[in-house]
């Protein structure tokens, strides 16, 4: 019998798992996909918001501001890239100034420090590429950028280091209340647990409805993004937002923690959570909207585009509470923006809910909040590089030319707890495939390393999902006739 089963291995589930691993609890995280961070966590803006956007008094506002404060320590402990670069919200006309001022007031009510209104000239002094149309900007210095999937993986790894169990490829199909506990049917297994925490993101309403009366609905809103080459990474220095208008929230332009530039997202409702494709119209919309902030974005330096889904709750605020008709079943649902920012604070809060249910929690005496630091070969000094190669010659073999990632790092990413088992899993953890060649050079090498380290044939290696085999078989084994 488990104490806790967490359903969903995104940023929320992973951070809750880590928080709970501080205590002597038998915790299991189940994830239906083949890897962590498979849903919204792998496809979002990667922004740690300052907190001026959320409605004062809402859970979004409370957890955004509290979560933001936890990021420095969290990312240091988990060896995850995080940069508090600050953000600007741009107003392009006199008509937008009231909305900008309202944002500032809201931020102040939410407890956001350092908010300041800047003139258009001052905004352009700090950001020379901004459009001349900018009349005023709201500066929020506590905004930042992070690696979201790295954070989810790191949190799960650390949680596992501290005793949490993880089951991937394990989809929950039934939940039954059995007396004081729950029986969760997942991946063909029957799992007993005292508490269930529903962090199933896009599927959280379906999971809720397995054991309780429907209480909320998740609406899927897709956002499309462009990612630009690292050469464009300093096109802007901060996260550049647009003032919300009746047209919507606007699109952002931001550096990423890896030095790329990200542009997006739009917001389009889609009928089901599988609609993660990019579209001609959506990308065009993003491009149009972004050019308002800066007219010279180098769209010819785009290296990839992607789309992500927001799990928007029809209640308009986070749902973080025990289900009324299912004691011990805790929903952590509808975590759309500012979900990433809020996640660390949500995790602490949920640990409190667990404490309310289970009584005082005994801390784990050997809890280690830090995971073994990630080695970023490219950032090491010459002598450190030399030392690492002497220690392990696999650091002397470059696998990803674009991002300067060595075989040693790839092997490490496979063998850590919550390690990579797919090509995208390697990409998520150590970056081969994220650079300008998008896997052209490193792809075959990563496949080879995965096969070797996992002890499986190359034809068994997947890109990501269960049916994403890369190679269909060996040559010389095919029967079809040649029609010459």
């Amino acid at each position, binding site marked *: 019998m488990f104490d806790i089963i967490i359903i969903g291995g995104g940023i929320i589930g992973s951070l809750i798992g880590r928080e709970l691993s501080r205590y002597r609890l038998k915790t299991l995280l189940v994830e239906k996909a083949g890897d962590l961070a498979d849903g919204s966590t792998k496809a979002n803006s990667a922004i740690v918001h300052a907190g001026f956007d959320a409605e004062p008094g809402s859970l979004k506002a409370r957890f955004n501001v509290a979560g933001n404060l936890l990021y420095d320590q969290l990312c240091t402990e988990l060896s995850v890239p995080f940069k508090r670069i600050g953000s600007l919200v741009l107003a392009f006309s006199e008509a937008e100034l009231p909305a900008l001022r309202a944002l500032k007031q809201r931020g102040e009510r939410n407890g956001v420090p350092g908010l300041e209104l800047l003139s258009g000239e001052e905004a352009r002094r700090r950001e020379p590429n901004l459009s001349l149309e900018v009349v005023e900007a709201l500066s929020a210095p506590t905004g930042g950028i992070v690696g979201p999937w790295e954070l989810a993986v790191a949190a799960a790894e650390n949680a596992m280091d501290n005793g949490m169990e993880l089951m991937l490829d394990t989809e929950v199909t039934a939940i039954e209340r059995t007396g004081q506990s729950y029986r969760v049917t997942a991946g063909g297994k029957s799992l007993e647990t005292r508490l269930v925490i529903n962090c199933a993101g896009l599927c959280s309403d379906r999971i809720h409805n397995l054991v309780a009366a429907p209480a909320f609905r998740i609406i899927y809103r897709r956002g499309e993004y462009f990612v630009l080459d690292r050469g464009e990474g300093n096109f802007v220095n901060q996260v550049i937002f647009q003032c919300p208008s009746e047209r919507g929230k606007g699109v952002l332009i931001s550096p990423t923690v890896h030095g790329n530039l990200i542009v997006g997202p739009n917001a389009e409702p889609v009928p089901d959570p599988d609609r993660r494709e990019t579209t001609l119209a959506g990308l065009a919309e993003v491009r149009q909207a972004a050019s308002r902030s800066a007219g010279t974005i180098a769209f010819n330096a785009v290296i990839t585009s992607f789309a992500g889904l927001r799990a928007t709750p029809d209640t308009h605020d986070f749902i973080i509470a025990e289900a009324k008709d299912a004691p011990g079943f805790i929903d952590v649902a509808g975590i759309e923006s500012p979900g990433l920012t809020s996640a660390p604070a949500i995790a602490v809060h949920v640990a409190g809910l667990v404490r309310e249910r289970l009584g005082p929690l005994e801390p784990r005496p050997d809890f280690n909040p830090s995971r073994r630091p990630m080695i970023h070969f490219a950032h090491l000094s010459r002598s450190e590089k030399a030392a690492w190669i002497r220690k392990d010659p696999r650091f002397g073999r470059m696998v990803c030319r674009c991002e300067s990632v060595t075989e040693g790092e790839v092997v490490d990413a496979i063998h850590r707890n919550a390690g990579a088992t797919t090509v995208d899993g390697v990409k998520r953890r150590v970056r081969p495939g994220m650079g300008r060649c998008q896997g052209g050079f490193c792809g075959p090498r990563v496949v080879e390393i995965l096969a070797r380290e996992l002890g499986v044939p190359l034809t068994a290696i997947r890109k990501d999902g269960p049916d994403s085999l890369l190679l269909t078989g060996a*040559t*010389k084994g095919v029967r079809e*006739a*040649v*029609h*010459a």
Partner: protein
Amino acid sequence: MKRDLICIVCPTGCHIALESDPEAPKGFRITGCTCKRGQEYAIKEVTAPTRMLTSTVRIVGARLPRLPVRTRSDIPKERLGECMALINELTERSPVAMGQVLIKDLLGTGVDLIASRSL
């Protein structure tokens, strides 16, 4: 008969026009070639077309699992499928030298299958 074709003998790719003419030498009136090889190709292409075949075969005991191979010269186009089927049956053993004959007189065409590299 009349045919337009593009010569594949060299990268220039001359546009050739052929017309059967019993009075003309070799039975065809040919225009558009810039060299003799092109003329020969054009006639061959409409009477008995041939192609070079390049492929790989399985190899064991080498650093790579496949050895690139080719026909030493061109073979009848309609026999490419048969030849591929035969090539697919081969398993060579390293070491193989570039130019080494792997199959002599491929399917009676008079053309050898040779290794394209040492492995």
